[in-house]
């Protein structure tokens, strides 16, 4: 227990992923759902960097994490654009009040 191994980081990452999933599942506000998605992407990054440190012995995991950060930046920009457009259209930031396509 005293020496920190790869599984310690994986457990922290699993906790972060579960909390992010909880945020995505339960929050009504769209910006809060985006925060949950950011938590999930961060947990994936912790996994990649931990494997890069303990498993492979090279830097490919860290490179992958940089790509994940790039994707996260692009994702949050597009998602906020959609949320702002939705707010302009429907005057609500809550996702469950946007049910126009529901049959």
């Amino acid at each position: 227990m005293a020496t920190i191994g790869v599984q310690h980081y994986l457990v922290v990452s699993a906790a972060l992923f579960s909390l992010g999933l909880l945020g995505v599942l339960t929050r009504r506000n769209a910006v809060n759902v985006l925060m949950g998605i950011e938590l999930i992407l961060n947990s994936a990054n912790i996994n990649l960097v931990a494997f890069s440190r303990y498993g492979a012995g090279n830097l490919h995991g860290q490179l992958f994490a940089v790509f994940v950060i790039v994707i996260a930046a692009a994702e949050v920009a597009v998602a906020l654009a959609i949320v702002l457009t939705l707010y302009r259209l429907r005057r609500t930031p809550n996702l469950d009040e946007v049910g126009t396509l529901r049959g």
Partner: protein
Amino acid sequence: MNAEAVVFYAFATITVGSAAVVVLARSLIYSAFALLFTFFGVAGLYVLLGADFLAATQLLVYVGGILVLLLFGVMLTHKLYDLDLKSSTHQFFPSALLTLVFFLFLASVVWTTRWAQGGERVPAPTSAEIGELFLGKFILPFEAASILLLVALIGAAMIVRRRKDA
């Protein structure tokens, strides 16, 4: 407990605790500021894993970019007199139970798996090697990611643009 374990548990507590505040706080502003501490905790874990360049990138991109963008999102999707910025939840207890079971499942898998302990990397400065890999072996995904980022940002600006005819 050696020093590495103490630092690890400190950063892990900061990360997971503030992530719980992000998910459970009633106010959107509290969530956003707790997200700041989560990003700091994750950056600390990166430093502990010997990823100095990635830790700096995490602080620059997440704290400097994404968090500010999210705060703009919070501010722009509420009326100005709506000061409390509440965010209610939806089907909380079934989801909490589901994610708790999911977390326990993941943790048990992590603890029972014998992970390959290959060549453990000695902590050393990484930015020079990352730069060589990006402009050598991984030049194609690097360029593809830069084009994707450009297209996504132009697309985001196009989506929120006010149209004349609307």
